[in-house]
């Protein structure tokens, strides 16, 4: 299968490479540069190199530390616990359920996933508002109502992310469970292993690679959620649901400190890269 000079053969890669270098690698490199400057949006003709000042400042900034904490809570709650567990539970339940129920549930969950981010944000804003559906349901059940977006904003946006993102885990786990040979499960059943023991000793170990990649992708996806939170709470009230992407946006644009905002972006990229490397290691036999 040798045709032409290697350089000619690689030519079709050029358009993609140019786009990737100019619009993705370029900004990342630029990101590394301006994170070390005091670049601002207004009232300053030149920016100067300030070394690690932006990073030192971040570590002393309560608002930054608050954003880190909220990002952690948001990610653990919605991605690691919510989407992942619910997705696995749905995939497992679907194998036992009747076909119409499976189709219906799958359809509803996937619709929530396919909806544009902003629309999902509005739907959940309406759901969690004081006059919204959740409180109506709680009233009907004679349970206490809350002004969710005010009292528990992180919980509300985390639920929103679970609502929006669970379909992905469900699809990944459905595919993984389909690949477990039926004989193995049946043999365990014959040996008298109950449902939980089969789950713990057979199912989970057999799909552990899917669990790993799914956790990675859920985490990366959740780390970069912006629109959903922006629409629901704008990071508020105050900064009580201001995760890192929203903090970065506020510093760079509302406070006009591009340098500082970019330093935050760089930290976010670094965390993302770390997860990305782990994800590659999980996949390493595939390439």
């Amino acid at each position, binding site marked *: 299968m040798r045709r032409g000079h290697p350089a000619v053969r690689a030519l079709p890669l050029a358009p993609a490479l140019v786009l990737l270098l100019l619009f993705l690698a370029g900004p990342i490199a630029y990101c590394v540069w301006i994170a070390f400057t005091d670049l601002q949006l207004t009232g300053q003709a030149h920016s100067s190199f300030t070394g690690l000042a932006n990073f030192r400042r971040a570590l002393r900034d309560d608002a930054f530390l608050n954003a880190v904490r909220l990002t952690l809570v948001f990610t653990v709650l919605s991605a690691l616990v919510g989407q992942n567990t619910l997705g696995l539970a749905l995939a497992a339940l679907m194998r036992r359920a009747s076909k119409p129920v499976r189709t219906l549930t799958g359809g509803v*969950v996937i619709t929530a996933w396919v909806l544009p981010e902003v629309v999902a944000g509005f739907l959940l804003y309406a759901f969690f508002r004081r006059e919204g559906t959740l409180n*109506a349901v709680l009233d009907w059940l004679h349970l206490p109502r809350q002004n969710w977006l005010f009292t528990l904003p992180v919980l509300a946006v985390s639920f929103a992310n679970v609502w929006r993102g669970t379909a992905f885990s469900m699809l990944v786990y459905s595919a993984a469970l389909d690949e477990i040979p039926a004989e193995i499960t049946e043999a365990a059943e014959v040996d008298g292993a109950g449902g939980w023991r089969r789950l713990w000793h057979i199912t989970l170990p057999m799909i552990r690679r899917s669990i790993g990649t799914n956790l990675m992708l859920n985490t990366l996806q959740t780390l970069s959620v912006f629109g959903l939170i922006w629409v629901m709470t704008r990071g508020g009230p105050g900064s009580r649901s201001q995760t890192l992407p929203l903090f970065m*946006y506020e510093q760079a644009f509302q406070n006009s400190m591009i340098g500082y905002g970019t330093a935050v972006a760089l930290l976010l990229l670094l965390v993302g890269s770390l997860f990305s490397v782990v994800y590659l290691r999980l996949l390493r036999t595939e390439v």
Partner: protein
Amino acid sequence: MPRTRPSRRLAADLALLAVAAAFALPLAWVVLSAVDPGAGLRVKIPDGIGLDNFRAVLTPDITYTPLLNSLLLCGGGTALTVGCAALAAYPLSRYPSRLNRPFLLTVLFATSLPVTAVMVPVYALFVRVNLIDTLQGTVFFFAASQLPFAIWLMKNFMDGVPKELEEAAWTDGASAAQSLVRIVLPLMGPGLGVVTVFSFVMMWGNFFVPFMLLLSPDRMPASVSVNDFFGNRGMVAYGQLAAFSVLYSTPVILLYVLVARRLGGGFALGGAVKG
């Protein structure tokens, strides 16, 4: 699929129905409010079904211009993504090289970077090179951000087309370009469809990219203009917001259904993520 005892099936059905109901409540709100002239924030049976909300939002300002902008942005971005990805996938899939593996690993690495984080430097860069508030700049960035995943998927689909068919064409004197266009791409039609629809759906729903890179109201796509229902126009007309959301969301849902059907209900993207 193993046989299931009736009692277990019932338990599973009930549990799934409970989850489905919880997931459906927010969706029910948008559907019911869109046709309810007196819509509020909670799910309720409409006071009377009417298309007033749709009539109110179907104006150039509110609906047509933003949807047209979305179409231009996402159509352009998708065309660029799919074109570049198909070209790039060809040498990666057809010619073995020492550089393929590192390149694909880099692409896969880029696939999972949080694009949100890049938006501040992209904005700063776009201001410098005068691409800010331009359609083409946004299209280029959309394409670049979608390319890693598109290349990855495209390469996997292309690997599924047997080389022998191409070799036959080559003996008949076809060039590599001809065999790509006439043989490989048609044979990977469903795969091409998946990449196209997936790229389009991702761009159609993306809020942050146009929110950052576009400034003029008349260039805003629907993902950003939908924000105008809040704040800027005073009282929020929830019914109209719902009607607009339905108009804006329907195309991507239809596209998803189309692709899901075409793959026999299977989920091709799963192939890219399962371990």
